[in-house]
């Protein structure tokens, strides 16, 4: 209480600006992280490493959207890859078949995934979480089936060739575009989570009965949350279509959902930045381990089990623990100094 008073009166504008940034989730470590990402391509000219950065960022952004649902309203979106795929195919087909601008394609992909998310959510989110999870999963299987079968439209397993954005094949512009999108997603989701609506999300996720008794309509908030997350998945999918250049139904496979899920959980349930950082740690490592083939995926699964069994808070829990420890040390230090000065 005292602290806020001090802030507003004495230090004024700068602090208020910092406070505004913090409510957007842009605390100093996160800002530093984004700034480092933004300058990286200036030093790295290797296309391979740049592509790896894009992929890491792509998975990190997906994990954010995934965690927005899982971590807050406690429902797992088991068809996440399907929504990403729907966004990708919609935007690609709009560009190829109707010749619209790719940016309009982005909008189309986002809206399509959002609408499908809204409908599945409306149908299942009034029931137990497992219903929504399984429904999304079956929808994903159906979408994958449709993309495989409708060969004259999607070219099925042969792959749909998508024109690159603005005709460029360099990776750096894609990286900046995705970075902008990720920052946007991060800021928007954080602001929602910090708003009253976010409070309702958390209340629903932690104790449904208590939330309901205090007048929160769970289904409404769950559907809003679910729709936003699905729309973000569609947006990311639209980007991915142009970046990767060739779409196959395999991109909607369940295993990609599991990858996102693992990153989100290892990053820490209920944090938006945890998944982002986890992705930058894990994606390059697993890329490096690629020659190991299946053994790599065994490690992946094993890692998920280990985290769930022994450290369910994930990376964010670890960071928080380190943060608290540093704070504790510092406080202890100042307290010690104060004591010694008193003595002196």
């Amino acid at each position, binding site marked *: 209480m005292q602290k806020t008073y001090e802030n507003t009166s004495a230090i004024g504008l700068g602090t208020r600006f910092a406070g505004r940034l913090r409510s957007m989730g842009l605390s100093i470590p996160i800002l530093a992280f984004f700034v480092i990402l933004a300058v990286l391509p200036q030093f790295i000219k290797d296309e391979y490493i740049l592509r790896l950065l894009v992929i890491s960022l792509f998975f990190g952004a997906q994990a954010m959207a995934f965690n927005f649902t899982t971590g807050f309203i406690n429902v797992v979106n088991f068809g996440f890859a399907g929504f990403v795929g729907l966004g990708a195919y919609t935007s690609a087909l709009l560009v190829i078949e109707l010749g619209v601008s790719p940016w309009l394609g982005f909008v189309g992909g986002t809206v399509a995934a959002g609408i499908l998310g809204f409908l599945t959510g409306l149908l299942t989110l009034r029931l137990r979480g497992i219903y929504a999870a399984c429904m999304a999963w079956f929808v994903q299987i*159906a979408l994958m*089936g449709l993309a495989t079968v409708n060969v004259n439209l999607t070219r099925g397993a042969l792959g749909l060739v998508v024109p690159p954005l603005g005709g460029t094949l360099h990776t750096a512009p894609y990286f900046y575009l995705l970075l902008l999108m990720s920052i946007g997603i991060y800021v928007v989701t954080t602001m929602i989570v910090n708003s009253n609506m976010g409070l309702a999300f958390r209340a629903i996720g932690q104790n449904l009965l208590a939330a309901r008794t205090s007048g929160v309509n769970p289904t409404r908030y769950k559907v809003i949350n679910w729709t936003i997350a699905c729309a973000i998945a569609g947006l990311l999918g639209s980007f991915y279509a142009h970046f990767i250049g060739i779409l196959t139904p395999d991109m909607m496979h369940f295993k990609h959902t599991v990858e996102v899920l693992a990153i989100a959980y290892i990053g820490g349930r209920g944090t938006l930045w945890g998944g982002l950082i986890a992705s930058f740690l894990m994606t390059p490592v697993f890329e490096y381990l690629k020659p190991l083939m299946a053994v790599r995926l065994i490690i992946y699964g094993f890692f998920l089990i280990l985290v769930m069994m022994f450290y369910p808070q994930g990376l964010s829990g670890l960071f928080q623990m380190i943060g608290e420890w540093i704070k504790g040390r510092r406080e202890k230090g100042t307290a010690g100094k104060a004591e010694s000065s008193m003595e002196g």
Partner: protein
Amino acid sequence: MQLTSVWNLFITGTLRGGLYALMAAGLALIMGVMNVSSFMHGELYMIGAYLGWLAHVMLGFDPILSILCAALTSFVVGVLMEKVFFHPLRRKSEKEWLLNAYLVTVGLSFMLQNVALVVFKPVFRGVPAYWEGSIQLSPTMGISIDRMMSFLIAVVAIGAFWLFLRRTKMGRAIRAVAEDARGAMLIGIELNNIYTLSFGLSSMLAGIAGASLLSLTPAYPTMGGVPLAKSWYVVILAGLGNTRGAIIGGFIVGMLESISYYALGAGWQDVVSVVILILILLVKPSGLFGSEVKGMLER
């Protein structure tokens, strides 16, 4: 549509139905008793198939014996998994354990699939047929003894499972826990044992499905994916945690699927499944046979 194709549809439909019923019954059991959503059920099916293959091809056991072997070993595998992964999890985190348990099943499924890939290589390991010969009903309509036996084994396994749940003391204890875990604990049922037993049983049912259908679907590391999705489909369609509903639902879905596959082809068949599920959730969200036992709303 000729009589022959109707006959063939019927045969494939019932066979698939037997498979789904076996898988879904086990899934519904875990869901009902432990309240865990298991996503490793497909991998238990895969393990059963590999065990059957090992016993029959490598060790040269006769078919019935190899299926029995696979069933027993699957049971042991299930019990071990419960003891190693879920029991400690349950003890450690009281409140959050359900969500964690379900993520552990996802991780385990991923891991087991790839372990199988390393150990058995991406090669189909099957048998042409457990039993030779076929029975002819007419010149064009016949059924191979192999298929008939697979179906019979599925029926016997389901029947035995059903009798076990209804007639034995342990089965009654399992049902009591499914109905009300706290009440069951109060009258002196050891919950941990029941959980372990249920997990083992469900693993055994999946193992029997895998081993007895080896001649139709050869063992392969990723073979579990489709049966997993289908058995979840059956469980949701029939009503969560409802074992009897899962058995009947399995046969219904098997039949529906073989018809829609025949009429529309592979990709559209999945769409049909989703549409049916949407209709059911709109009209009767507790599922076809759903009672409110476990509740479809959050507990």
